């Protein structure tokens, strides 16, 4: 039977995390932005969370269970954490490199590279996918891997490698044969301090989400053992490796709606933040303007809920193992740009005061821009949706 509510306990916990976020995370948000890093006491702050979210990264064990299921639980808690600002989720993140290892590594590789990271205090991992010349179109990956006896030699440049400079290792996507495009791409574990792995920028200078460390790096004749190719079993069996890597990269069917949901969480934070300030200044507005503001707030509120509903539906489909390609792309096409508009409008309603660095709205307006870009831009989402509707005849 259709029910649009999360279970009561999960709702309650979301609310508890949100009020905790307002109290402990918002006050540190400006600092995280200015210092381009999570606050030094981030882990101590996480320990004060009313729900044991700090153990999300250690798997399901530490988290309460709800009738909604584990994926919906993780997503819902993540949404609530995001409301408290980006630095909170960055503090909990271990990166994604080890998740790729878990998906496509051999049992030995999983034991060597996934297990240690998954333990508490296990450090972080990076994924070297984006390149200066390649973003949305991963078939254009120009980093090369050349076989040299029992080694691979990597050459190329990567950017937007999350946590790259702080990682135990980086999973680097490189092509063993550029003519084969997608089919030539393999994943390699490059451990930190490997000669030839050169961190060109430990943290890229960004418009927003500045506490999110993204690294630019280059690989210059970087030599790694053959055993560092993920999924390599000792035989150069191409097909297995290709299929599994493709699966690994597309298997996160919930990341697109999750990004959409995060955008909505930012919009909700901005909405609450601005509503409170506006309410306080109500007498300063002429009555006809106040009436219009109430109208606007109502419409923003509804739009945020549309975005959330969209995202939860797509994620729920994934949790059930049902196809969600259209729904996931649609959620992401809707949420992020709508969140941008809402945050900007909140800022504008407050006038120059709302646009100053004394308030968080301008920061969230900078932060939120990435949501319509990463995990596929809004344009890529529309491309996918039109292909679903029209097949290969769709405009590209």
């Amino acid at each position, binding site marked *: 039977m259709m029910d649009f509510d999360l279970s009561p306990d999960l709702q309650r916990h979301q609310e508890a995390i949100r009020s905790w976020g307002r109290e402990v995370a918002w006050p540190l948000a400006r600092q995280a932005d200015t210092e381009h890093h999570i606050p030094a006491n981030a882990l101590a702050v996480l320990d004060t969370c009313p729900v044991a979210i700090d153990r999300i990264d250690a798997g399901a064990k530490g988290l309460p269970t709800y009738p909604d299921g584990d994926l919906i639980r993780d997503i819902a808690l993540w949404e609530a954490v995001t409301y408290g600002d980006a630095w909170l989720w960055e503090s909990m993140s271990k990166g994604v490199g080890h998740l790729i290892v878990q998906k496509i590594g051999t049992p030995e590789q999983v034991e060597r590279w996934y297990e240690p990271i998954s333990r508490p205090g296990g450090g972080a991992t990076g994924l070297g996918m984006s390149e200066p010349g390649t973003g949305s179109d991963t078939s254009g990956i120009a980093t090369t891997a050349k076989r040299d006896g029992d080694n691979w030699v990597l050459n190329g440049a990567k950017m937007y490698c999350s946590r790259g400079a702080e990682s135990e290792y980086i999973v680097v996507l490189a092509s063993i044969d550029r003519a084969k495009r997608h089919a030539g791409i393999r994943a390699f574990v490059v451990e930190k301090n490997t000669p030839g792995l050169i961190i060109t920028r430990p943290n890229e200078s960004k418009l927003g989400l500045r506490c999110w460390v993204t690294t630019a790096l280059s690989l210059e004749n970087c030599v790694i053992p053959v055993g560092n190719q993920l999924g390599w079993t000792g035989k150069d069996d191409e097909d297995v490796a290709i299929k599994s890597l493709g699966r690994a990269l597309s298997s996160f069917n919930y990341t697109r709606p999750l990004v959409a949901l995060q955008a909505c969480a930012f919009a909700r934070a901005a909405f609450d933040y601005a509503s409170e300030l506006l309410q306080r200044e109500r007498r300063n507005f002429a009555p006809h303007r106040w009436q219009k503001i109430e109208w606007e707030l109502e419409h923003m509120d509804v739009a945020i809920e549309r975005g959330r509903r969209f995202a939860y539906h797509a994620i729920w489909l994934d949790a059930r193992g049902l196809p969600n390609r259209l729904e996931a792309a649609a959620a992401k096409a809707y949420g992020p740009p709508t969140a941008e508009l809402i945050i900007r409008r909140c800022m504008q309603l407050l006038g120059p005061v709302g646009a100053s660095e*004394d308030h968080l709205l301008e920061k969230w307006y900078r932060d939120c821009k990435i949501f319509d870009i990463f995990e596929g831009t809004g344009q890529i989402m529309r491309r996918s949706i039109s292909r679903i509707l029209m097949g290969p005849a769709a405009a590209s």
Partner: protein
Amino acid sequence: VALDFELTDEQRAVRDLAGRIAAEVLSEAARTAEQAKTVGHEIWRKIAQTGLAPAIPEQYGGGGLPDALASFLSFEAFAHGDAAMTSGIVWSANAAFLLAMCGTESQRSEHLPALAAKPECRAGIALYEGFGRAPSEYRTNIELQNDGRWRVIGRKVAVPYGRAATPLIVVGNDPGSGCLRAAILTPHDSGVVMEQNASLIGLAAAPTENLKLEVVLSAGRLLGGANGDPELLARAVAHVRLTTAFIALGCAQRAVEYASHYATERIAFGRPISQFQGTAFLMADAQVQINAARLESLEVASRLATAGVAKLERSVSMAVSYACAAATRATRDAVQVLGGHGFITDHPVERWYRAAAGLSTLDFDVTCSAFSPVL
């Protein structure tokens, strides 16, 4: 009199001159100015030498006042180089403009020569109040006291150079006459309290303060004196407010040009992304809106001297609102076209995204536009 969109030779010359300086000077210096949170004296001097900002009448040591349209076109062209620095320069020039248009002879001789000669002189106008108020609704009062002196009382936001502005011109309403008035303050006046000095998003090069004012002045400090012409002041204030539209449009146009060029060079899926409608139409839509906004703002500019004062005030609100909507959209879509590259500071589009947002809040009136979700 007939429909005519032709610019005069002077207007074209002024626009082209400003465009050259924008490309050669402002664009280059933008990042540095943002970090330094100021426009350097050298750059200030170069702009001042053009006679465009500040524009000062010849008898006070300037190059004369260009016509309004020429002035707006030059500001738009400057903003094509950098919107934040242009804001800092224009905001000071606007104070000089108010003095030149509405000041008494002695007020002009007192303040204008210094603004013409010294690049370290920064004037400012305490104009905006937030809450969507247009000038006729400003709650800052400039009122006659029993002792014959005048009291300025109110709160102003985004005041360029804040307490340091020399002079600082405060615009408010006279409850006695119900008309607009302005007063000239200097940093020596007591009763000016800074309530907030955080810069606006994207406009760090143009520092502002929020001020609480409670100042008592002699009648000689009223702009134009106690018998100043309120209609002349209202028109001059409309002119000042309209500068925001042109700064926003210069910024928007630059963003569209930059991202369009980028799209022709960036390859994805085997071809330049300019060949995808999803990318190309973003820029096309942005250009449509910019052109519509520019024509609207130009029309308002051309009617500054003739439109009814109440009608003029509202049409300025509308034009500024629409130009800022065009700019926030164009800069946002420019970042989008650059994708991940748009989100890092190697490319200037992220700076324009911020500057357009900051500008859009200055004179924002919720009744001039409506929130609507993307889909």
